[in-house]
């Protein structure tokens, strides 16, 4: 095999390079070993080990059960269908957000991200209010979708629209439009130019987005629990049922393992597709690529996207807000006022305190996720062997492994020395950061890899140390991606529910936990308070995201 000249380096440089890479990866590896692998392994061990021996026979018994097989089949096909539907509906949205300038774009970008951070139970309720018995559709046309799979699919699109718009649109806005123009000059129609030039360039981002959507819908919990009824059940719902209702920890452990293996398979496929598509793209300033829509076609596209957003995202959120004001005595602030007193008895503190708890936890979780994910992404940008690529996939695991299992695992493992964090507030941000890290890595990596290596060399020749090269070349170019990543991490931390519900202390509930607790209690006042708190959560998310959009546009002026 021929050796390319530039790759022959003195041994010392090689050693130094691997030392840096090892250093960059050590922190994320330790983090994941301690706060992910250990708790999950402990929970699985507890389920599959009786009297010190492993009970692997349970695998055969569980997997041949027709009920379980049905669950596996449904989990897979609804995830595939949801992913396809989300891409179909959200890709035009990604294009519109990337390439068109229109009034209210920033607000709208924040609005489409709000569903993503809503607790799944709240979104489930919102869709129930829209599509279910006595819902908006039922009242207007007598149509009910809550007993069909369509309600689940639509709710999944509602959740994941932002994933596609942000992941794909972020890269799209930085692709040089002249690549498409070059294709047009060679005789390609608008669509052909998009299909042959832009789509392949977007490939890694589309694959990343599709993978995320598939993972979320594959492990969907709250939505299916509420909208699926007894007919539809995903793996995650089944794990919950087996753990919490049937107390069959062994079955739950088997299913957790099955989900784990499936997620590993998906991630392997993803790593393979991304590797095949890696190409150095020419990125340009997004401010140069977007313009006002021109011509009937472009205006129609914009109108279509705005209409979709209105129907699919604004309407369910609107129903939620409407219900938070619709008290028994007519429209008013009754439910909101009730949030400020602890008298309801649901918590030791007024429910409104959950807002501050949530913000504090989410900020800390974001900081952790950005540091851990950022280090990991930088380490992964330096091309290296199979080991590093495996690490890439490992970072994605928390997205697919059941949050219920992780939260439960935290409780049974981090409660004794040497690591007794049971009483510490840091436990919640740690669990939340675990879900945030994959977002940071996924958002940063495509952009970091697309940075032209010659720029780094130019900086190095001008006397910049590797750290300065990163600071002066990579950071300015990935700052947008970094802010988007931080936004995602903050958002998922705010909305994280499955793990937090096990570890948040009753005197320090987070917003989603408070909402779920209120929803779980009977009575109109509790339901109304849950809706009011959901509305507040929605507002907190919207304001934070809006601030982030603001920072982002201000900063681009620096370069």
């Amino acid at each position, binding site marked *: 095999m021929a050796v390319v000249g530039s790759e022959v380096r003195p041994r010392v440089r090689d050693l130094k390079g691997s030392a840096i890479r090892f250093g960059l990866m050590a922190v994320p590896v330790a983090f994941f070993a301690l706060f992910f692998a250990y708790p999950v392994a402990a929970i699985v061990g507890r389920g599959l080990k009786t009297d010190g021996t492993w009970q692997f026979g349970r695998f055969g018994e569980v997997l041949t059960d027709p009920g379980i097989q049905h669950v596996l089949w449904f989990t897979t096909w609804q995830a595939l269908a949801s992913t396809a539907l989300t891409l179909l509906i959200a890709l035009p949205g990604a294009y519109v957000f990337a390439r068109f300038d229109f009034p209210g774009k920033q607000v709208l970008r924040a609005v489409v991200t709000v569903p993503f951070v809503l607790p799944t139970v709240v979104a489930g309720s919102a869709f129930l209010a829209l599509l279910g018995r006595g819902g908006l559709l039922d009242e207007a046309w007598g149509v009910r979708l809550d007993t069909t799979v369509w309600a689940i699919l639509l709710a999944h699109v509602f959740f994941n629209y932002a994933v596609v718009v942000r992941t794909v649109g972020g890269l799209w806005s930085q692709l*040089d439009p*002249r*690549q498409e*123009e*070059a*294709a*047009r*000059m*060679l*005789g*390609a*129609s*608008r669509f*052909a*130019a998009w299909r*042959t*030039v832009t789509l*392949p*360039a977007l490939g890694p981002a589309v694959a990343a987005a599709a993978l995320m959507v598939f993972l979320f819908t594959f492990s969907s919990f709250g939505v299916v629990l509420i909208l699926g009824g007894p007919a539809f059940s995903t793996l995650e719902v089944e794990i919950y049922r087996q753990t919490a209702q049937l107390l069959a920890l062994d079955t739950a452990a088997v299913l957790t393992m099955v989900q784990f293996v499936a997620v590993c398979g998906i991630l392997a496929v993803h790593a393979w597709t991304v590797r095949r*598509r890696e*190409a*150095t*793209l*020419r990125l340009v300033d997004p401010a140069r690529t977007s313009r006002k829509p*021109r011509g009937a076609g472009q205006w129609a596209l914009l109108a279509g996207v705005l209409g979709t957003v209105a129907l699919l995202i604004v309407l369910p959120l609107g129903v939620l807000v409407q219900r938070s004001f619709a008290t028994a005595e007519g429209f008013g602030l009754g439910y909101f006022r009730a949030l400020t007193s602890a008298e309801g008895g649901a918590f030791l503190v007024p429910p409104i305190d959950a807002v501050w708890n949530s913000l504090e936890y989410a900020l800390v979780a974001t900081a952790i996720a950005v540091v851990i994910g950022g280090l990991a992404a930088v380490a992964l940008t330096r091309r290296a062997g199979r080991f590093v690529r495996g690490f890439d996939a490992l970072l994605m695991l928390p997205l697919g492994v059941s949050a219920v299992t992780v939260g439960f695992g935290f409780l049974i493992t981090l409660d004794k020395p040497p690591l007794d964090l049971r009483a510490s507030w840091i436990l919640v941000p740690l669990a939340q950061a675990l879900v945030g890290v994959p977002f940071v890595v996924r958002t940063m990596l495509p952009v970091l890899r697309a940075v032209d290596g010659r720029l780094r060399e130019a900086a190095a020749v001008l006397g910049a140390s590797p750290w300065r090269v990163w600071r002066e070349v990579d950071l300015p170019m990935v700052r947008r991606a970094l802010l988007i990543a931080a936004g995602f991490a903050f958002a998922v931390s705010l909305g994280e529910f499955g793990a937090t519900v096990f570890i948040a202390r009753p005197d320090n509930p987070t917003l989603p936990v408070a909402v779920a607790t209120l929803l779980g209690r009977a009575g109109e006042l509790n339901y109304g308070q849950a809706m009011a708190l959901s509305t507040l959560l929605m507002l907190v998310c919207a304001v934070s995201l809006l601030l982030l959009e603001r920072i982002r546009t201000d900063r681009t002026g620096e370069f």
Partner: protein
Amino acid sequence: MTLHDESLLGLEQASVRFDGHAALDAVDLEVAEHEIVCVLGPSGSGKSTLLRVVAGLQGLDSGRVLLGGRDQRGVPAHKRGVGLMFQDHQLFPQRDVGGNVAFGLRMHGASKAEQAARVAELLELVGLPGAARRAVGLLSGGEQQRVALARALAPRPRLLMLDEPLGQLDRSLRERLVVELRELFGELGTTVLAVTHDQGEAFALADRVVVMRDGRIAQSGAPLDVWQRPADAFVARFLGFDNVVEATVSGEAADTVWGKVPVPAGTPSGPCELLVRPAGVRLVPAAEAQLTCTVAARTFRGTHVALHLKPADAPRLEAACALRDAPEPGSEVGVAFEAGEIVVLG
């Protein structure tokens, strides 16, 4: 205005405005079949907009674009049958060399066999035989330029447009390629509309040169005519002539800051601007001198030396002299002007 029957491309009063600023201001331009026209101008003069308008990538605010006598209003870019080579080539990074060259053929529905044959033919033509499977990211600048040219030529466009075709290449390569291009287009009979900011490139490539300024055409004509008789001070300076001076003509001479300068016979009296070509600034013994200068610097230009002369209390002027006559920097020289090398600017 009517168009000639044989003109392939016609622009009539073409105007484009960006935020109130005119990028193209009522431009009239014709390009005949098999003609090579170079649009020359500084950046921001509207020359790239001109190409984009013809390509259909940019709409007109008023005026018309005609190709083969047909108004192109409403005809999308991919149906105009024109080729455009982009400034930085815009090769598709996901495709290899062959995939890039074959792209236009695929879009026009050519069969696989046709594509392969034409790709091989074109790579041969641009001097990259057998490069079809190479990755574009690994090509040198000159090779990328050749691939971009092959790609643009592949679908046989009726008009080929080049945006700064040699802009990013090094000088010697540029000088070689411009000759190659000229010969290639001559053999193929390609109609070419190129834009560049480099006058050397334009004059070597073109049958006709069009100089643009602020969205308008400042001068149009055969390279030699434009070179010999720049229409105004802007064109003269843009072509690299720095000896442009305010003058007042009376009879056969004109008063300038450099003293009395002879003018061609028949020049109307009154104020005007004069261009004194460097060749018209002769070094003479002090007795015959109209002006005494110090040699500030000299630049070797291969066949001659360009001298930068500093008069006592007037702007610098440039002179050309033979290699063996070149005075040392710092020495004092006498200067006389020659009527044949002096041009009255409009």
